[in-house]
């Protein structure tokens, strides 16, 4: 064995060098998806591939301690994991009776994309001389296949693409570890039993399939961002993972502007993370947030992505890019009053046609009230109410109450605040609504 050869682990495990541990943690975060995706192709079984990749990380701890961290840790790990997978295949004849992972060779080859030119692990495999194909997209699209339930898609993405342990995923979604383990096992079983192919969908299916992937990543983000309970750390981890996944997708699919839109949306929303709650833990409205504490670097990156996405492409922009553009207008406004409301209204009009949901219509109504006065917004909200699709949605009476308050219609406002209170369990929101209710009851809420 030569130095740097990712072969069998040495026989003398040594005390972990902090530098090596850090390199491994970094490689776990950056390279897990690449290594697993490449190994799955050889192992032809997801469970076997996962085991081989885990073994490779364990072997790395020992080998890197003795020989130093290799120049390209991802390639080292991939080579080690793929060798193990080949060994297992040679040894384990029982695999023949199992259903192998369905690798479709016809998928569009995706090799080392990315405008940033960040080489990741996609370079030459150490000592093998062949280029390891970048199969991360296959892995992502398989995890988010529409034949799997949304919660299974989410769990599989965290497990297989991010390499999170089942216990960590269970904590993030507030379910027990056995429940989450069963969910992951069921999903993997379906992939092999129903023959879900390990491939990137063709052009005809791509828009729908990509939307499912983006929805899963967005769901990861919002779970981390708004989780009502749960340990702080887990939530931050989910947010970071979601942004990392969105970044990876942009790198691998540089021509998909909805992928850019999602990354921009997450960056622009997350730029306000530090100012979302007050010192007392109370949820702060956009109006009340300290704009000087917003993350200007994230905002600059997000708005650049939006500008680039909106420019000169054929076809109308999709829902993620439009939501990002809306978040960008808020992020760049000097103050709440100084927000470019007419621009927001235009963007909401586009969003309503790209994604005609009553929730979007409600948000548009709130913006309409800012451009054309509370009566205009109120008329929109009443139209949405007549449709009846949002009954039980607590932000509807809350938005209505706010407009009535601003019109000085205190009795009607009080009634709407009552209705909103009856629809929410969230303590922070209840406190806010109760405060406003007391205000209009005393008639203190002067018309604006």
């Amino acid at each position: 064995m030569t130095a740097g050869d990712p072969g069998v682990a040495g026989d003398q495990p040594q005390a972990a060098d902090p530098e090596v541990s850090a390199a491994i943690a970094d490689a776990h975060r950056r390279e897990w998806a690449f290594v697993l995706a490449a190994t799955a192709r050889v192992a032809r079984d997801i469970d076997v591939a996962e085991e081989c990749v885990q073994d490779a990380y364990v072997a790395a701890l020992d080998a890197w301690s003795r020989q130093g961290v290799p120049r390209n840790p991802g390639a080292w790990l991939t080579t080690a994991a793929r060798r193990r997978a080949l060994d297992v295949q040679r040894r384990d004849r029982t695999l023949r009776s199992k259903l192998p992972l369905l690798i479709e060779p016809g998928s569009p080859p995706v090799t080392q994309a990315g405008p940033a030119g960040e080489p990741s692990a996609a370079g030459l495999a150490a000592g093998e001389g062949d280029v390891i194909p970048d199969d991360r997209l296959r892995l992502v699209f398989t995890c988010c296949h529409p034949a799997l339930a949304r919660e299974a898609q989410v769990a599989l993405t965290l497990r297989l693409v991010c390499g999170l342990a089942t216990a960590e995923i269970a904590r993030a979604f507030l379910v027990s570890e056995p429940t989450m383990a069963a969910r992951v096992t069921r999903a993997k079983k379906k992939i092999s039993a129903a023959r879900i192919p390990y491939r990137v969908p063709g052009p005809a299916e791509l828009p729908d399939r990509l939307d499912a992937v983006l929805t899963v990543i967005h769901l990861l983000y919002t779970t981390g961002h708004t989780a009502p309970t749960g340990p702080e750390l887990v939530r931050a981890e989910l947010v970071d993972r979601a942004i990392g996944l969105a970044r990876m997708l942009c790198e691998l699919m540089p021509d998909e502007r909805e992928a850019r839109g999602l990354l921009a949306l997450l960056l622009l929303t997350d730029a306000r993370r530090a100012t979302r709650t007050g010192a007392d833990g109370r949820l702060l409205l956009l109006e009340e947030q300290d704009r000087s504490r917003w993350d200007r670097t994230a905002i600059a990156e997000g708005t650049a992505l939006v500008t680039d996405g909106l420019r000169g492409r054929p076809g109308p922009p999709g829902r993620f890019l439009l939501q990002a553009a809306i978040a960008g207008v808020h992020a760049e406004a000097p103050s709440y009053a100084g927000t470019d409301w007419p621009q927001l209204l235009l963007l909401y009009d586009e969003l309503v046609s790209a994604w005609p949901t009553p929730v979007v219509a409600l948000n548009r109504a709130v913006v309409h009230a800012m451009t054309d006065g509370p009566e205009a917004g109120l008329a929109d909200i009443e139209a949405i109410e007549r449709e009846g699709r949002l009954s039980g949605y607590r932000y509807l009476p809350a938005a209505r109450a706010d407009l009535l308050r601003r019109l000085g219609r205190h009795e009607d406002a009080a009634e709407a605040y009552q209705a909103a209170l009856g629809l929410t369990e969230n303590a922070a929101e209840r406190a806010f609504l109760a405060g406003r209710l007391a205000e209009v009851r005393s008639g203190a809420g002067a018309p604006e």
Partner: protein
Amino acid sequence: MSQYLILIYERESGYAEGGPEVWEAVGKAHGRFAEQVGEKGGQMLGGNALQPTQTATTIRDDIVTDGPFTETKEALGGYYLIEASDLDQALEIAKLCPAPFGGVEVRPIMDMSGSAG
């Protein structure tokens, strides 16, 4: 290649109320579907329409009773057995299967060939 069963679940009342015109139109659609399976790269291995659930008889613990196994609003009314390269192709084919009064369920056939040896 793998085999999939396409199960057609529909409200039986749709046909009862629709009369012969509906029956004929849906029949024609099924004829077209049989051709489309090959066009999509799959293979039709078989299929049948079933008599309505009122003709069903159930046996449970040796006790024979009148009626289907479970009463549901949408009942199994027919099936196709197809061969496809993977689930994506099977779903693409199943999307074309006529089921105007309900929908279809796609189930992979269990492959027993490998487990014995």
